[in-house]
């Protein structure tokens, strides 16, 4: 697919995934380049989450290849993870730790140091002012989601893989998140997202891939 002039960063080549004994999708190929947003569509059970987990490198596809700058992500591993930020259905935050602690530990594991003051700023920006110090288990669903999403603001990963990021968020937060994704893409980042909400995404750079209606 690539013509060699401008190498697309994330390539999916003839990918097939099987869950249980059901083929979710077969021979799926697409590319996501710098400054592009890929909106992944498909009905429930069509394999969106599976595809995202495969893109993140959590799941081994049945066949096919996922390449980052031309190299298979299975061989790159940590080198690829450095550029990646994945948010799944689970928020990935510890209930016993506060929002600030969660954010700072996530940052350290992602390989950079987030100063305390910066963490507080980021949490204020995402709308958690006044809740920074509370154990996360006392936060509401939407607020927990915001803690997880705060990583988007603190991180400088190139590729964002977001599985239903708008779930549990209120209108203001949905708008904020759209804005954050738009800024990321405008800066030359990449994003692959799934969502069932009809959100107005940045028009020209958005591409859509619809997973098939295969039912065994």
């Amino acid at each position, binding site marked *: 697919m690539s013509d060699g002039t401008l190498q697309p960063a994330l390539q999916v080549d003839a990918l097939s995934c099987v869950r249980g004994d059901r083929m979710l999708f077969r021979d799926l190929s697409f590319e996501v380049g710098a400054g592009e947003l890929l909106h992944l569509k498909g009905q429930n059970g069509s394999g969106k989450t599976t595809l995202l987990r495969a893109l*993140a*490198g*959590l*799941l*081994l596809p049945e066949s096919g290849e996922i390449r980052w700058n031309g190299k298979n992500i299975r061989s790159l591993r*940590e*080198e690829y*993870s*450095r550029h*990646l930020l*994945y948010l*799944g*259905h*689970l*928020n*990935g*935050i*510890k*209930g*016993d*730790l506060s929002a600030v*602690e969660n954010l700072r*530990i*996530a*940052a*350290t*594991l*992602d*390989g*950079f*140091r*987030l*100063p305390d003051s*910066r963490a507080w700023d*980021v949490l204020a920006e995402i709308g958690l002012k006044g809740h920074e110090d509370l*154990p996360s288990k006392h936060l509401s669903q939407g607020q927990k989601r915001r803690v997880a999403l705060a990583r988007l*603001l*603190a*991180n*400088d990963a190139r590729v964002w893989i977001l599985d239903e990021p708008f779930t549990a968020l209120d209108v203001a937060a949905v708008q904020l998140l759209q804005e954050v994704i738009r*800024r990321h893409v405008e*800066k030359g980042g990449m994003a692959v997202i799934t969502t069932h909400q009809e959100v107005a995404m940045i028009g020209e750079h958005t591409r859509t891939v619809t997973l098939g209606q295969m039912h065994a």
Partner: protein
Amino acid sequence: MNTPVPSPWGRCMLEPLFWIIRRDLTIAMRRRADVFTTLIFFAIVVSLFPLGIGPEPNTLRLIAPGIVWVGALLASMLALEQIFSADHRDGTLEQMLLTPQPVALLVAGKVLAHWLVSGVPLVLMAPVLGLQFDLSWDALQTLILSLLLGTPTLSLIGAIGAALTLGLRSGGVLLALLVLPLYIPVLIFGAGAVEATVSGLGGQSHLSMLAAILVASLVLTPLATAAALRVAED
């Protein structure tokens, strides 16, 4: 927009290790009940034997090493499931697999934190329980030393089993079946060290074996556990 400040530690590999230990210790301090469960279980199991067998000092001295060690082994196995299950449930485990850090290093950190919380209290408690069996001061010293070398090995080996049984419904039984055969050498040399001291032979050689097993598991098991975690999250 946001330029993350580069870490002043540079590429120091041990910084994430330090943070993961700190994180797990903080969480453990905020839910102390889990720590006490292990400790109380250990105390109950070991204390019931003198009551059941009767106050014959010679018999008690004879069975003491085995009973304290079996108690410690069971207590440490009881705590195993907690190593990864909470992280698996709230999604922090999958995030850990996606960081640029070597997973084996993070695993080592988690196991170390787990040992500090569940293993060290056992080591500290053991001499008190040993007194019930009329163990000599020499034997108590060897007991502490053998547990100090043995319990981290139990945590390291157990972590493989915990990772393999992650997310299974009756994982507890399977975990025991997987891990117990691997625990047996540690039990034999651990209890053997104390027995040898009681009988006057000296437990040096047993302790050296325990140390050797510890070093080997320290190097090998985090790699196996990391591989098992990748499978569990697939």
